[in-house]
């Protein structure tokens, strides 16, 4: 049971990250290398805003509010000040701007939070005991439920709402979409906000299970691997990819060597890139092939 619990939580963490990366890739053909940093900073913000007024005791509602405010401001800020300007520049500009964002966020962790190791403990009730000695805290249950809710909401949004359809139109062809009256700027900043929100949730999840620090930003690369395994332009693939990475990571820690588990996402990455670079569910033509 402990095995199932761990893999499910890890899958949720990676799936949220991968979903964000996929949404950004679909929306603007940008691969966000700063996703892990955004997630961890989001986790720190969640923690700090929860602690802000309640002196030692964590207030979940304030924390959630802080995380949402952070996501909206961060997403809109990144899009409006940076990513909007790199359209039409050589491809490396967009990538390297996200790399720059990654470094700035990392330095923010050092400057603002003194790079301290934090474990997020919301403090709602102890844990549920499962058969086989596994424990699942209510926070874990809540986060899994939230992840599922997030994906369902995403599905409903893309399928049934006007904005969601506009979003898919923009992903298909931004120029045509804008000529048909879609507010591309709104759609793309929304993409960034959703992606940052998902990343923040994932950071909170990770911070509840392990700890937040400057080193834990590597979950971004696990998320990137998950997105690639599933296919960079497939949301469904993001979940499957996250499951593959989470399972592989868990099994390596258990059966082979914990040290290897850190390098594992990249080994998977290399294997996927050499065998099936468009991933499990990705579109073949999407690939920037030579």
């Amino acid at each position, binding site marked *: 049971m402990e095995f199932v619990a761990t893999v499910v939580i890890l899958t949720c963490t990676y799936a949220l990250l991968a979903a964000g990366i996929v949404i950004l890739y679909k929306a603007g*053909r940008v*691969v966000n290398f700063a996703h892990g940093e955004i997630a961890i900073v989001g986790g720190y913000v969640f923690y700090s805003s929860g602690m802000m007024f309640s002196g030692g005791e964590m207030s979940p509602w304030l924390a959630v509010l802080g995380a949402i405010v952070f996501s909206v401001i961060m997403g809109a800020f990144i899009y409006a000040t*940076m990513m909007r*300007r*790199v359209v039409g*520049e*050589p*491809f*490396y*500009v967009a*990538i*390297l*701007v996200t*790399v*720059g*964002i*990654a*470094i*700035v966020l*990392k*330095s*923010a*962790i*050092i*400057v603002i939070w*003194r*790079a301290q190791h934090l474990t997020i403990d919301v403090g709602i009730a102890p844990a549920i005991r499962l058969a086989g000695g596994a424990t699942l805290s209510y926070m874990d249950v809540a986060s899994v439920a939230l992840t599922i809710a997030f994906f369902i909401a995403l599905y409903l949004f893309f399928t049934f709402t006007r904005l969601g359809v506009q979003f898919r139109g923009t992903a298909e062809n931004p120029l045509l979409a804008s000529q048909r009256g879609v507010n591309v700027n709104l759609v793309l900043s929304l993409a960034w906000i959703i992606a940052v929100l998902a990343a923040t949730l994932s950071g909170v999840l990770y911070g509840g299970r392990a700890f937040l620090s400057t080193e834990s930003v590597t979950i971004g*690369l696990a998320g*990137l691997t998950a997105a*690639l395994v599933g296919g960079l332009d497939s949301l469904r693939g993001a979940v499957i990819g996250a499951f593959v990475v989470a399972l592989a990571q868990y099994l390596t820690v258990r059966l082979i060597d914990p*040290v*290897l588990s*850190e*390098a594992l*996402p*990249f*080994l998977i*990455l*290399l294997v996927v*890139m*050499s065998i099936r*670079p468009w991933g499990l569910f990705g579109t073949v033509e999407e*690939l*920037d*092939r*030579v």
Partner: protein
Amino acid sequence: MARAGTNLRTSYLESNEVLRRPYQKVLVGLILVAAVLLPGGSSDYFLHLINLCLLACIGALGLMMLTGFCGQISLGHAAFLAIGAFTTVILTVHLKLPFIVVVPAAAVTGAMIGFLVGLPSLRFRGVYLAISTLAMHYAIIFVATTYQAKFSASASAGITIPDPTIGPLKISGAPTWYYFLLVLLTFITIGCVNLVRTRPGRAWMAIRDRDIAAEALGINLTRYKLLAFMLSATLASVSGSLMAYYSNVVTVEAYTLDLAVIYVAMIIVGGMGSILGGLMGAFFITLLPYGIEHLFEFLPRAWRFGSTVFGVQVGAVGVCIILFLLLEPKGLAEIWRRTETYFDRWPFRYRPLDTTRR
């Protein structure tokens, strides 16, 4: 006085000149004289900083060849540096080989690894290539970590390397290193400049600007892309090897992804596709953290800001990347070119011609 001289070219040889303007020759001469005289009037600490810059220049030129000229983005430069450093460790600590053998050996190893890392570039470009170099980075660093865990006395201390000797001459101390690196960098720079204006460089630029068109022109993409990767890895490896000798210690913790990004920052700040830019960027980014440290010393009770200083040093590189990409995409080299053009045209204020000299 306004002259037509710099833009009017009457022969092929003339258009291929490196130092086209008369004052450029004077300037280069002055810089060289100043560089030779520099150790006479400066402290060891200052020379140490300059040495770090010169070492970074070698690595940055390598990345500039690959990304700036051939257009292949690489996030694996730190791994190439690590290859050089760990080749040095293996050859000096286990085999006790001399400096004069080790550095070329590191270069050859770098070239081989560069060949391997370059292979994905035959199938991917753009984002996918960046991700594959990222994966390569982690694969190489994983191997290095495993090696270090096995062979170093304690996991965190790293592995010590003795000072190098060439025949009777022992290279140690800032001034000796300075002259050695200066001579080496001068040769490497001349080599790069010549490479860029001859067949390989032109092939690279064609690939960068449009690979399909380049192939249609008869450029062998496989060959020139792999050549770029090999050259880049070779220079990085030499830089890493010299860095190992210079600091006398090799530890895998130094070769993080952040280091790769720092090198990328150098070529962005310097200006993509410019050798001069590569050198300027290397100096700028290497000196940046020290500059920030000194700025913080002006604050009252500076000791309180210990970890803040470190954070700001880290973040400044990211800020530089973003600001240069958004506001001055061709970097410091472009600023320098604008200045030159301004004085060329003086007292008139024509807009600078947009024929970018690479």
